[in-house]
Each structure stands twice: as structure tokens, then as C-alpha cells.
């Protein structure tokens, strides 16, 4: 049983605040130490979500406004290694994420039932509707909160 569009929009709307609550009081060391071997730091997870949801908002507009739009893939592991994606300073990323989610929600709330059935594709050939796209990113955000919590749980006892 999948969530309704309204429920998924609500997850997107509340997401920046929920993410911020998880990382707000962390030390710089907790933000920048990969406590899980081979996985990202907490900071990388947060910056990645902003990169990814910026991209998602743009793809969403392309899927809505173009016929047969195809999303361009990118290597998220490489993207997470640049200076802006490693910084312990979360403030710019949260300002950005808040702004993106607010505009994205305003756009989604304006769509008709028919517009939600608009589709876009991936280079793999997979085609999805905007409803399915919303499901992907509502889950994507929450998955990264889980991953951050697992990362912090792996911190060695002081």
C-alpha cells in the first residue's frame, strides 16, 4: 500500500527540519568522521541530500514541462568528494535545502491529477510518472536520516 500524494508531499515539506534535528548538536568530529567503514560522513550525507534534491527538483520540472525528458545520470560518490560536499559547515546546505523544498512543495501542490501522470525517463530506459518520482525522493531523504543514525550509532565509545 503506497502513501498518498498528500502524505508524500508532507514528508518532503517537513524533511529539512527533520534532518536538521538529527544533526543540529553534533560536534565537528561527529560530522566529519566516517564511523562506518567505507561509508560517507554525516556531513557528506547532508550535503549529498542537498545536491540530490536540487537535481531532483530540476528533473521534476523537466519531467513536468518537457515531453520524453531523460534524466542525466551523475556519479554521486565523486560528487560527495568536493570541498563544498565535505565541509563541516552545514549552514549553507540547510538554507539551500529549505529553499528548494519550499519551492518544490509549492509546485507540487499546484499540480492537477493529470499532471501527476506526466512521465520522464532514465538513460537505462526506465520511465516513471511524477507520482513515482515523488515516492523515490520522499524515501531517499528518509533513507539518509537512517544512514546518519547508523553512522552515529557506529561511533566508538569514548
Amino acid at each position, binding site marked *: 500500500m503506497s502513501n498518498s500524494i498528500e502524505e508524500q508531499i508532507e514528508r518532503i515539506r517537513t524533511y529539512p527540519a527533520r534532518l536538521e534535528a538529527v544533526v543540529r548538536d553534533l560536534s565537528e568530529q561527529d560530522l566529519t568522521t566516517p564511523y562506518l567503514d567505507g561509508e560517507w560522513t554525516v556531513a557528506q550525507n547532508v550535503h549529498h541530500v542537498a545536491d540530490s534534491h536540487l537535481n531532483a527538483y530540476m528533473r521534476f520540472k523537466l519531467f513536468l514541462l518537457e515531453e520524453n525528458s531523460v534524466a*542525466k545520470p*551523475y*556519479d554521486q560518490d565523486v560528487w560527495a568528494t568536493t570541498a563544498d560536499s565535505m565541509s563541516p559547515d552545514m549552514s549553507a546546505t*540547510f*538554507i539551500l535545502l529549505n*529553499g528548494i523544498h519550499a*519551492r518544490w512543495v509549492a509546485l507540487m501542490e*499546484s499540480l492537477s491529477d493529470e499532471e501527476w501522470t506526466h512521465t520522464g525517463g532514465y538513460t537505462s530506459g526506465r520511465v516513471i510518472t511524477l507520482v513515482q518520482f515523488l515516492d523515490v525522493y520522499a524515501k531517499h531523504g528518509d533513507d539518509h536520516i537512517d544512514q546518519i543514525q547508523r553512522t552515529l550509532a557506529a561511533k566508538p565509545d569514548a
Partner: protein
Amino acid sequence: MLTVDERNALIIKMRTLPRQLAELVRGVPTDELEMVYLPGEWSIAQNIHHVADAHMNAFHRFKHILLHEQPEIRSFDQKNWSRTVEATLPNVEDSLFILRGLHNRWCTLMDSLGEGDWERRGLHNQAGVVTLEDLLMSYARHGDNHLEQIKKTLDAREQHKQSDS
């Protein structure tokens, strides 16, 4: 190629753009932000939403070109993008937030680049070969153009008020 000083001056332009935009529209009532004072042109709000959309796209392209080998990059239909609901809302706070956060991260990224990185190139579907330096020049200019456009719109708003009184 730009000199290091010329390039740094453009990065400073990028760093200050969000604040300049915010200062231009501070105190302007929201119902005036969505007014079309120049016939056939965008409202002030549409200008700001458009800069946010365009610079999100540009940051994304910038990372693509930096991190992938000569990626293809595409233009987007900015007229269409400026017609959706969230791109016409009178409230510009969220777009100003996007620009503040985005330009801060973009400048952090640009400050970290090595000299050779600026020559990295992508292939644009209309403009052809585009280097990171080209992108920096284009978007510093793009920001300036929209500051100008908003100033012109604010001037037209003044004239509109005077002719009303």
C-alpha cells in the same frame, strides 16, 4: 584565460549576488513584487525565481563538468520554467534562501579548484564547448544582468507611483 585576479573578482561577484538581490527588494511589498511594471517583461519576483532556477542549473552543470569527462550539458526552456506556480509566487524569500545557500557552496567549491580545473570542458547542445571559466563568466554576467533588470523594473514602479499620485 582570465588572470587569477580577474577570476577572483568574478568569484566575489558571485559571493555577493544573493545579498545584492535581497537588498534591492527589501521593503518592497509583495503585491508589488508580482506586478509587471515593464510591459512584456517579468515581474521582480519572476526575475528572482528565475535567477534561482538558472543558477541551480548552472551549479549542477559546473559540478558535472568538473567531475565527469566532457559531459553533455543542455539548455532548459526558461520561458516555460518561469510560468510554473512556484516561479511566479509573489513571495521571494525561498528563492533568496536558495541563492544564499547555493552561492555559498558554489564559492566554496570554486575557491578549492586548482588552476588546471578551470579549463575543464563540457559540451553544450547550443553553445558548443564550455569551460568552467566560461561558466563563471556567464553566470557572473547573468547575475549582473538581472540586478540591472530589477533596478529598471523598480524605476518603472516609481514612475508608475508618481503618475498615480
